[in-house]
């Protein structure tokens, strides 16, 4: 092979211009953006409806006597009517067929073993009891952490878990806490699942945190919550 042909074969191919690189990336990014926006626009209403149905299902599961519900939000110490798209902390009040207040469905979340565990739990201000929960999000270990939805003994803790508010309406009377399996002595204690202590503790911590934050505000606004559905019906009737 001659020297000139050797040099020719060792030559690197010419580099493309910056314009060529930028225009390729720009074109691909534009195609990408177009596809993402197209599919987002199409699926967004369906996803929102799915989320609404999931929330609705969870609310009526934790408040089985309710046949309708209203959404509220917290503004410092007061509770205001809202809708499902309102930003911030949402609270749901359940009402029976006669528009009587049956209880609240509240959100709670805490770090579990794998990731954040999110619950929606039922709370009866009249008795100060937490009456059950529905798991909204959990990626806990199958067979262990997932027992919080299936373990009959653990779920029995929530037949009436004491979450009463003190007389000053500032906090819970007792701290809700998870105790070692088989050592529960008080109605505000949660008997942990053997082998799933971290997830059981997360449930206790999140209910305590949410209870301290939300239950006093609910107690202060109980009259408003009780009459909200009837008031809304009357206003709707007058407008009609």
């Amino acid at each position: 092979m001659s020297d000139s042909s050797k040099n020719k074969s060792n030559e690197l191919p010419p580099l493309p211009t910056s314009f060529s690189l930028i225009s390729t990336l720009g074109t691909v990014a534009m195609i990408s953006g177009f596809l993402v926006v197209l599919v987002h626009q199409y699926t967004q209403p369906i996803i929102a409806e799915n989320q609404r149905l999931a929330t609705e299902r969870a609310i009526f599961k934790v408040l089985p006597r309710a046949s309708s519900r209203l959404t509220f939000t917290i503004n410092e110490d007061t509770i205001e009517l809202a809708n499902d798209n309102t930003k911030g902390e949402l609270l749901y009040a359940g009402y029976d067929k006669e528009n009587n207040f049956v209880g609240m469905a509240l959100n709670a979340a805490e770090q579990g073993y794998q990731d954040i565990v999110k619950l929606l739990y039922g709370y009866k201000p009249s008795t100060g009891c937490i009456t059950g929960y529905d798991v909204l999000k959990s990626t806990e270990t199958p067979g262990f952490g997932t027992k919080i939805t299936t373990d009959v003994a653990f779920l029995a803790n929530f037949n009436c878990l004491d979450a009463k508010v003190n007389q000053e309406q500032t906090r819970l009377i007792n701290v809700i806490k998870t105790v070692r399996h088989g050592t529960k002595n008080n109605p505000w204690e949660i008997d942990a699942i053997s082998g799933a202590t971290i997830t059981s503790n997360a449930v206790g911590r999140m209910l305590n945190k949410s209870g301290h934050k939300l239950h006093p505000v609910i107690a202060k606004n109980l009259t408003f919550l009780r009459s909200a559905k009837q008031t809304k019906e009357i206003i709707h009737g007058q407008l009609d």
Partner: protein
Amino acid sequence: MANSTKQETPLTLEVFTAGIWKENPVFVMMLGLCPVLAVTNSVENSLAMGLASVFVLVCSNALISALRNFIPKQVRITTYIIIIATFVTLVDYIIQAISLDLYNKLGAFIQLIVVNCLILGRAEAYASKNSFAKSVISALGMGLGFTLALVMLGGVRELLGVGQLMGYQIFSTNFQPWIIMILPPGGFIVLGSWLLLINYIEQRRTGKLIAEDLASHCSVNNH
């Protein structure tokens, strides 16, 4: 600017079937093992992850193949990642629209399809060098092979781990589930067992072929 298009081999059935068995991405090439081990604790999850991967693999390979002559070599990986991430975002929205429960079960593994080396590997090794039709057919075969492997793992793990298949009870209530099967170690155990079985079958098949070959040689020599 463009990648040179070499003389291509013709489109045959082999292009499609190679990914399903002979070059199966999981059992032969051992690619994309993270979702293989992580989400195969039930058939439903395995099937959903497999189909999501098929969608991303086929669409990204189709687009990459269609644009292969316009993508400069220097920015090819960046471009492939943008294309793959686009289709992963689409599949993320689509699964949320189909079922929130399924979306929550699959967790972050849907988004992690972006970094599945099977998809980027096929884009770089195949779609960037072959025609549109061949890239799509090959991606479909690879995707189905990947799904088949996921379902094979998911089936065994769900059956032994909870005594069910696709949510239907198979074993009687007396069956004591092997919880380990639906935990991460179960993924390794079942994958190892499948590899053992598949390699055993393959070795026996190859051994038989060699023996037949030798026998025919011997008979020719004797004659």
